[in-house]
């Protein structure tokens, strides 16, 4: 096993010698056809794309059998390293990996410039919006956004009203889900402003790529992804309560039974801070302390990976065992900082999302750099009328749900399903939005039947303390099932290493 990487390299050389004559079924791109979709590797970008051509050629040189063997070895190494999420049932713990596809997804420097500035713009808007609604509510009095959409939102936290957060930053860590349409334009699907996950896979996929496919990466000038932990720690240190010299940062995790536990470990290690669970912390004198072998020790910033409702059983859910009694009190006194702030869920709500282009204009006076997916807001009469008239062409989504629940995909729904959705929509229009079905872009992906186009999305991660920094690239999630648009790991999704080319024409 230990020598697999080495043997694979030897094997590659052997394949390269023969590749001149390779064709047909062992040629990975044999019969590759992305159809009407934008292909992240093969659709011409209109800029010099030497890197794309190089990768395609190198994959061809490796050949399908070696590609498969090396991909399997790479995934096996993920299991050995425990880069896994764990599924618990009774006494058994089953470790699953997020499947790794070895063909990288490549973004050009120009594409990344758009994505990066678009993400910054949205993060700035989300923070301005949160500050506004928890202070003066100008956006509501100006009638840009319906007041009950905010004030009646279950994620709105009265505890946040008039509460100062450092630098006006509420969303310290943001994950923006982005897709690409057949024209190659990027569209934002949703903002994740609570506790977005997946960044550990961005970094681990790059490490895995470098170990298992050094020949694919050779000479490529890529934007590095190793800096995430340092940037995150920097932001967490910046937002600590004022006047604390050398603040103590911790990462608060629900513990080993959480499916994102590996990521919590990864981030704690990359920051060099303790991973704590609720039981490790206590509140005394309105301050937060952790229990150590030499007694209590002060904590100043908590990067929490548990939801608002679970933070403090004395304020939110009394049955929560994950949080820390008294934490919100200590936070209200300004003795500890939380990232993300409490009450950010109101900003990444699906209905609020629909207003994002208007919010960007309202707060920043700019047009949105990244478009929303065209969204019809059924609480608005024209949106409702359009939706009702086009049910069979639209995706109809409830605003309050997440994880794909309650969605009706018109083009793939039966008549009965469409009528049921119509009835639900008419009963409570305010709970619904509709969007056209997007033909997501595809990327060549190694499958049972060879390299085939599979749909994918992109989640860049932005870290904000005093300023915003965006990790180059992000997590590319790929739907491994043919034709599937669902990229979630729980439903057969995998991931790819995401390369951002350092500059145009990017071979070093």
């Amino acid at each position, binding site marked *: 096993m230990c020598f697999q990487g080495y043997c694979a390299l030897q094997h590659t050389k052997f394949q390269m010698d023969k590749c001149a004559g390779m064709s047909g079924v062992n040629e990975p791109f044999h019969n590759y056809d992305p159809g009407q979709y934008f292909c992240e590797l093969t659709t011409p970008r209109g800029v010099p794309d030497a890197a794309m051509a190089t990768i395609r050629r190198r994959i061809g040189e490796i050949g399908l059998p070696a590609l498969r063997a090396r991909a399997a070895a790479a995934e096996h190494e993920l299991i*050995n390293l425990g880069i896994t999420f764990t599924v618990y049932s009774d006494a058994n713990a089953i470790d699953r990996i997020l499947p790794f596809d070895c063909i990288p997804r490549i973004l050009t420097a120009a594409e990344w410039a758009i994505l990066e500035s678009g993400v910054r713009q949205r993060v700035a808007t989300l923070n301005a919006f949160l500050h506004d609604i928890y202070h003066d509510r100008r956006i509501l009095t100006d009638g840009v956004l319906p007041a009950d959409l905010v004030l009646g939102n279950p994620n709105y936290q009265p505890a946040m009203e008039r509460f100062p957060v450092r630098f006006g930053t509420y969303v310290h860590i943001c994950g923006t889900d982005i897709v690409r349409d057949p024209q190659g334009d990027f569209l934002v699907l949703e903002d994740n402003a609570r506790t977005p996950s997946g960044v550990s896979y961005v970094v681990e996929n790059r490490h895995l790529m470098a170990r298992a496919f050094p020949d694919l990466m050779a000479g490529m000038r890529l934007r590095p992804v190793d800096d995430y932990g340092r940037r995150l720690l920097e932001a967490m240190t910046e937002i600590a309560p004022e006047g604390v010299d050398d603040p103590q940062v911790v990462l608060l995790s629900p513990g080993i039974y959480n499916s994102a536990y590996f990521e919590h470990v990864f981030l704690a290690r990359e920051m060099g801070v303790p991973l704590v*669970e609720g039981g*490790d912390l206590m509140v005394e004198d309105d301050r937060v302390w952790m229990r150590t*072998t030499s007694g209590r020790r002060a904590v100043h910033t908590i990067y929490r990976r548990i939801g608002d409702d679970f933070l403090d059983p004395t304020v939110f859910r009394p049955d929560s065992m994950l949080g820390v009694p008294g934490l919100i009190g200590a936070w209200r006194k300004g003795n500890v900082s939380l990232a993300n702030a409490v009450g950010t869920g109101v900003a990444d709500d699906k209905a609020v999302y629909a207003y994002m282009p208007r919010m960007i204009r309202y707060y920043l006076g700019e047009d949105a750099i990244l478009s929303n997916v065209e969204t019809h807001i059924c609480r608005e009469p024209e949106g409702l009328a359009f939706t009702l008239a086009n049910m069979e062409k639209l995706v109809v989504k409830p605003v309050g749900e997440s994880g794909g629940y309650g969605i009706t995909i018109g083009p793939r729904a039966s008549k009965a399903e469409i009528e049921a959705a119509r009835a639900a929509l008419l009963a409570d229009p305010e709970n619904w939005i509709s969007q056209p079905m997007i033909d997501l872009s595809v990327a060549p992906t190694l499958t049972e039947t060879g390299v085939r186009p599979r749909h994918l999305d992109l989640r860049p991660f932005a870290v904000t303390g005093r300023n915003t920094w965006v990790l180059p690239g992000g997590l590319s999630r790929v739907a491994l099932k043919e034709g599937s648009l669902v990229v979630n790991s729980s439903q057969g999704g995998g991931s790819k290493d995401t390369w951002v080319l350092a500059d145009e024409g990017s071979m070093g």
Partner: protein
Amino acid sequence: MLRRSFLLSRYAEGLFWMARYLERVENLARLIDVTQSFESPGRESEAWFALVRINADEEDFLKRGLTPDAASVKHFYMLDRANSTSIPFSLESARHNARTLRPLIATEMWRQLNIFHRDVLAIDASELEGDRLSSLCTRIKEGVQAQSGITAGTFYRDQGHYFYQLGRLIERADQTTRLLDIRYHLLVNGGYEERRLTEITQWGGILRAAAGYHAFRRVARPGFTPEDVVSFLLQDKQFPRSVGCCLDEIDACLTHLRSVHNLRGTAPALERVDELRNALFGQSASDIIIAGLHEFLDALQSDLISLAGEIGSAFFPMVQPPRGAEASSQSQS
């Protein structure tokens, strides 16, 4: 500038138990290996049931309706994940603790433990048969030893290292007393000369199981007696698995935590170590045997449990016991 390190109580506890469980796995493999060598024709079951006795598992074993024969005992310790004194249970518990410690331990430690764990869970019943058993025991032993080597070579030596060592040393001392106790439970029949030869073979087997046979040969008198073996395994200061050697190292760990990391809560534990040493070196091996070796070993085991209790109540009193911790308080046999 480097920061002064500190350690979460929960991590201290996890490290202590991770090390204990790993040490237990290695020693169980040693015990099983030596038990096989104690099988004498027609008396296989007795040799195997002695293993159940020294682990104080008789009640649990019989309650499950198991028959005290070789196959059942081997299965009980090597395959039964529900048995809290089995190898798979102990390894599972070690890995469970390691998972909570991933922010702290070296990646290489976690990786090896993962692979080793998978290997042990895949043990097939056919591997417990005949000559395959001994090589399986070796494989398990080496799995723990690889982990120990990686830990020695990679694990950062702040407080955590010393809590890890404490768990390992306390478990090792405990297991050595159990290994020695196995002799007590073996019946030897036959005439004088036959008994003498069998006994010599058995003592040799115990020394081999503890990996101390050759070292013992170097220091023992030519015609060695049981007293010499008992003295070696309990009181020798150079043999790494002797109780005396473990106590010295435990003392050194506690003293380091006290002087370098300023953990004043070490005082009661250090006192316990002194008491243990007084009991251990207060009498000669022959006096111990005359007064009753089995009773002496029982008392040592009980004192080691108290020592672990002092460390726990001083440094990790508030946290939940880790899964599988109940297996630690093996009752006194």
